[in-house]
């Protein structure tokens, strides 16, 4: 019955093989172009983080050590470029120095680590000292030490966490090629005090602190590239205006109010300009001013809402924004003088653009099937600007909005509303590894990732 000649059989097999390869390539592509464009790479480095050795008998050391261990482990896990050996698979030994480590224990099963981070932590007299090492576990190397670092600070849990972030960023820089995000901050809006105020936290959701106490509605925080100021919009007696909070001074700074509904400030990456939406001339349009709010000039002139500008941080020569000129809001891009307007989304309800640090991608919130009667269930998307091809990052998990790129391009922070309640989440830029950063205490919304 099966009477294929050898030649025919080979031909069929070859065709089948090609079909399989084509299928595999197509299936992988949707993720790969995002992963390669966002420094995530295609394979992950296997790394283990040993529990650090407590090298002093100071009673404080225990709490400081557990904060340090947990923070270092999470930073490596969140980095997006590591396959971190789980705590249950690492050896129970806690080598404090290179002399104390048995490398075979870490390179062999079940840990199978290519690299191991370890070290010691000493607390005495209110001072905390940390020695951190990163070793390559491969056999027979001339110099297995990749990093050897010393850190000092106050003997507090927060200081211990900050040192772990610094050590993690050194490891990420060394093995991942670009600066990590473990020391970055996220600015956001929380109504946990009863009114929407501007808050800040570390990128991992720890160390939350309230910045503004205006008692009205404050929205859309955007930190300056030098981390000195936070621009946001706030409702006052005469409507919405941009306010400026100095992180250096810990208070509001003077900023001109030009009238009209003025909203959604966005910093250029050189810190010299702000883009925002304002109705000072009657209709909400996109404007650009200098960083002090002076010299504003209008870029758009269509009737209808124009809001939520985002600079191309690579060049500062282009802006993305949201326009309702064709009814439902869509994402557009234009040159920073208002020329070359290009529509990017082809329908639905598309909002909240954020431009990737490389200039290659936009991320935004999109409901592709939005319509009357359909409650807003948005997902986060990434679009390659040159080709306009896009991929969906969130699926069937509440209404997602306000994505903001991390400075390493590898992460996106966003808000997720489920059951009428919003929290801040982060994920890798390919949509994997979604982590909730805030936990209750009102609704937490509109996250903005610091530039460094």
């Amino acid at each position, binding site marked *: 019955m099966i009477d294929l000649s050898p030649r025919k059989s080979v031909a069929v097999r070859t065709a089948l093989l090609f079909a399989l390869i084509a299928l595999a390539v197509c299936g992988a592509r949707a993720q790969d172009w995002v992963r390669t464009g966002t420094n995530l790479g295609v394979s992950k480095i296997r790394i283990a983080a040993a529990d650090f050795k407590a090298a002093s008998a100071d009673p404080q050391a225990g709490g400081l050590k557990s904060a340090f261990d947990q923070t270092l482990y999470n930073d490596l896990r969140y980095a997006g470029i590591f396959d971190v050996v789980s705590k249950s698979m690492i050896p129970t030994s806690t080598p404090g120095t290179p002399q104390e480590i048995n490398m075979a224990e870490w390179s062999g099963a079940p840990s199978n680590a290519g690299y191991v981070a370890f070290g010691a932590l000493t607390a005495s007299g209110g001072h905390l000292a940390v020695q951190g090492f990163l070793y390559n576990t491969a056999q027979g190397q001339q110099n297995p030490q990749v990093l050897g670092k010393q850190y000092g600070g106050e003997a507090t849990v927060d200081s211990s966490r900050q040192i772990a972030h610094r050590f993690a960023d050194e490891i990420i820089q060394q093995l991942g090629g670009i600066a990590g995000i473990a020391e970055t901050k996220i600015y956001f809006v929380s109504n946990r005090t009863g009114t*929407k105020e501007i808050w800040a936290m570390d990128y991992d959701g720890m160390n939350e602190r309230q910045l503004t106490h205006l008692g009205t*509605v404050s*929205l*859309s925080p955007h930190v300056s590239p030098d981390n000195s100021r936070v621009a946001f919009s706030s*409702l006052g*007696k*005469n*409507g*919405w205006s941009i306010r400026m909070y100095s992180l250096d001074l810990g208070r509001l700074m003077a900023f001109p109010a030009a*009238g*009209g*509904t003025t*909203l*959604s400030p966005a910093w250029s990456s050189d810190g010299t300009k702000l883009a925002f*939406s304002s*109705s*000072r001339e*009657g*209709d*909400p349009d996109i404007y650009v001013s200098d960083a002090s709010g002076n010299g504003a000039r209008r870029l758009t002139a269509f009737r*209808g*809402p*124009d*809001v*939520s500008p985002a600079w191309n941080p690579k060049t500062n020569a282009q802006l993305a924004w*949201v326009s*309702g000129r064709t*009814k*439902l*809001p869509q994402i557009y891009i234009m040159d920073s003088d208002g020329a070359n307007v290009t529509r990017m989304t082809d329908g639905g*309800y598309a*909002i*909240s653009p954020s431009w990737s640090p490389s200039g290659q991608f936009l991320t935004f*919130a999109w409901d592709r099937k939005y319509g*009357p*009667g359909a*409650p*807003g269930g948005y997902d986060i998307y990434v679009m390659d600007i040159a080709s306009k091809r896009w991929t969906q990052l969130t699926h069937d998990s509440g209404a997602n*909005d306000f994505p903001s790129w991390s400075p390493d391009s590898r992460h996106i922070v966003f808000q997720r509303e489920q059951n009428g309640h919003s929290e801040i989440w982060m994920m890798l830029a390919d949509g994997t590894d979604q982590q909730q950063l805030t936990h209750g205490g009102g609704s937490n*919304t*509109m996250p903005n990732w610091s530039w460094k």
Partner: protein
Amino acid sequence: MKISNRTSLVMAVSLAAMLTVAGCHKKNPAPPPPPAPPATAPTPMATITAEPSSITPGGSATLTWKTTDATNVSIEGLGTVATAGTQTVTPTQTTSYHLIAQGDGGTADATATVTVTSAPPPPAPITETGIDENAFESAVKPVFFDYDSYDVRPDAQSTISSDANFLNQHPNLKVVIGGYCDQRGSTEYNLALGENRANAAKQALVSAGVSPDRLRTVSYGKEKQFCTDQTEACWQQNRRAQFTLDQ
């Protein structure tokens, strides 16, 4: 706290406005002497200046003009005037005062422009009695909008007409027009859309004869809701332009 701040602001601004107006009146000189009749019918000459040339809404400027050899002098918008003189004007928008001097020897003209800057007008104290917030809101009804739209619907025209009628009968009332959106959609986009809704209601009232100086817009987007159910009936309640007393 808020009310006392607002009240003191209103009083301070009103006081400043009164002082400004009083200052201008003092500067008005006596009417000029009548011009000498022309002897040989030379060509008329005319000049007009405005001081200051730029004012904020509600402020005033003094026009000063001189002509020679003219028998009939008029300023567009003010009518026939003396051949030389001064007059205080309070334009609500940037206005060019065009002076035409006609004489036996021909015609001359000159123009002075008073620029009205876009700073918000100083709020005037509410002087109407018997109209509180509740009475106002039962007389001046909100305007409702379609989903993702800021066009005033045909069925809202009668509301606009009766609102405008009431406001025209109470010319001292100042109004805040709040633009509201339902809870679907983006926070930032809805604030811009709410601004468009408030502005559309403002334009409709202006078209119905209400002075734009009395109307101020504030967008609330989806930050303040009249109704919080997840139904179309509720969403419709939230898609509105709401009128409140500006005080």
